[in-house]
């Protein structure tokens, strides 16, 4: 395998919305010794399909291996490596910052103006900053906020989508008889 430098790869996987699918994907990464930066999963506009965005730091060869191994999972409908094409990616962070004096509050406001960020909660002691942006911008904001004092931080992980008419979708419709009880089970209690 010609060894290219590791870089960030964003793999988008369309998966069946069934119990245990997230577990299958996570198990694959552990089993094959692939390192995941972040993995996000959520429903799509089709109730039987969920979509994952998996960010990995890998060589091109390893990213290809991950791609092929994901496709091997029966419940994975399709996979695209969107880092090989023009795409949009977003990471969301909520950052709780110290805001108990004028200096920190002013600093906070000034910093947030330079980012796609806003203060979504503020009290006498702390404020919560929300940012939705590309991952590197989120990183930059976090670095700028550090001197003020970060108390708590949560990030969603990256979600991504190819630009333009590159559509990652499936025409598949589930064939199993969906009874009233099974519907409730598949889509509420056991959603991935």
């Amino acid at each position: 395998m010609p060894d290219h430098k590791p870089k960030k790869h964003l793999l988008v996987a369309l998966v069946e919305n069934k119990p245990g699918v997230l577990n299958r994907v996570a198990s694959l990464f552990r089993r094959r010794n692939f390192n995941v930066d972040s993995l996000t999963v959520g429903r799509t506009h089709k109730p039987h399909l969920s979509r994952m965005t998996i960010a990995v730091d890998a060589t091109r060869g390893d990213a290809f291996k991950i791609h092929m191994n994901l496709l091997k999972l029966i419940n994975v409908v399709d996979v695209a490596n969107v880092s090989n094409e023009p795409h949009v990616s977003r990471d969301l962070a909520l950052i709780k910052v110290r805001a108990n004096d004028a200096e920190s509050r002013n600093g906070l406001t000034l910093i947030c103006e330079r980012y796609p960020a806003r203060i979504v909660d503020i009290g006498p002691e702390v404020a919560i900053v929300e940012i939705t942006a590309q991952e590197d911008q989120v990183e930059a904001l976090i670095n700028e906020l550090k001197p003020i004092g970060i108390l708590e931080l949560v990030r969603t992980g990256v979600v991504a989508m190819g630009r333009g008419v590159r559509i990652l979708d499936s025409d598949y419709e589930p064939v199993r008889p969906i009874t009233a009880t099974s519907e409730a089970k598949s889509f509420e209690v056991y959603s991935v």
Partner: protein
Amino acid sequence: MKLSGAEIVLECLKREGVEVMFGYPGGAILPTYDAMTKYPEIHHVLVRHEQGAAHMADGYARASGKVGVAIATSGPGATNLVTGIATAMMDSSPIVCITGQVTRGAIGSDAFQETDVTGVTLPITKHNYLVMDIHELPYIIREAFYIARSGRPGPVLIDIPKDIQTEKIEFVYPEDAIRLPGYQPPQTASDKEIKAALELIHEAKRPIILAGHGVMLSGAVQQLQELAERAQIPVALTLLGKGAMPENHPLTIGMMGMHGEAASNLAIQEADLLIALGMRFDDRVTGNLKTYARSAKKIHVDIDASEINKNVHVDVGIVGDLRAVMDQLLPGVKGASHAEWLNRIRDWHEDADERDIINRDTGDELWGAQVINDLWKFTGGNAITVTDVGQHQMLEAQYYPHQRPASMITSGGLGTMGFGLPAAMGAKVARPDEEIWAIVGDGGFQMTLCELATAKQENIKVNIAIINNNYLGMVRQWQEFFYEQRYHATPMFSPDFVKLAEAYGIPAMRVERRDQIEESVAFARSVEGPVLIEYAVEAEDIVYPMVPAGADLDKMIRRPKPGESAR
């Protein structure tokens, strides 16, 4: 027609053409066992340990090409299947395992005999199911069989809670096509890929075909032979590839890898083109990847896309069904002779004959290689052999040439000791007209010898050959080579195998001299049911040649020629 979940299971198995299943009952699977009384056409073989059930299903599948079925209860019953499932996974063997589970309401409560079996088997199955809705059950069983046998075959497990087995619904068999949106086994190659492969084949001066299990799984045996003959390309076989090409064919060099023929390994290292067909460049086959076939271009055809470029970087990787790809490839293959190259390989072979223990007078000693060689001779080379794991397995691979597909069954990928006896029994159930020999070591045999009782109860005619050297021989060999002969935990006490067999009502015989081997084969053939023969061989045997793990493929430890000193 209203059927219970248990009846649906059996009804669906029947429609999949299942004639036999191997299993062990228990609380959580009892409703299904009870329903079996209504389905006498599906024979149930009661094993003595669930591992045996999984291996029997595996042996059955490998011998017949059909899906093998194992059935067990929840908790310990299911976890006992694990080794057998992992074995089937590594060797791409199609089996379906059905396990009982505690009732849906009790799942997650640490109920009696509850284990998260779909969790446990997730990484060692091709796919698995926990049935939570009885309406899905018939679909799941159909999918399970389809997934198990199609594409790259593998094990599928279905975990069925007890209350689903007893619940009743109006049963309609789903006749419509299976729709698995995320599963489309690949078929053919693109024209571009075929063209690129042909170019490499036609340019090559020193090509070699590496034939694996996939040749037989896809039914490309004839195509392989045609390719080899037309372009005069020598064929090396993987362990599981034995049978892909007749071993008496002049173009077959023999097994490759750690204990492969020296000529195969040298040819691979010298080749300018590897044509890898249905094999996966396992580390036991490649040795040191950095020095593996350095001057060779590589074509790799496999049905599993994740195998291409996994271990060895290839120039042309083709994902597809091997037979379909070969049918695309063959019309374009031009004749060639490669006379010089074939002669060189032949020269390497002759050196091996000089070193071979078979060609030496060993006096009163009995060696494992001689036993296997003579078993081959006296069975006419036509038996189906099922091996365990260790020295006897490698000796079988070296000294029992096979001429037809699926005539050697062995645990290659996982190297599961204890596989031999139960897998041989499964093979016999699948192919009752064949002469089946379980060739096992004293170590592995003792891991699953409880299945002697199953063989007796079911009167499964397997000929069990125990190659007894009173050691865990392969481990001892490693200790001799790499651990300064510290034979720790390898000398092995065994019971009197002849008496043991007799305790099970199984006729048995002990062989201590080479001239008794012919008689032992005749004896085995004269017994109607299972029979056991113990071959008491020399203790400190070594399987040559050997490529130490991770060493360059051509850095083999060879058996010294007469007059040479060891190592």
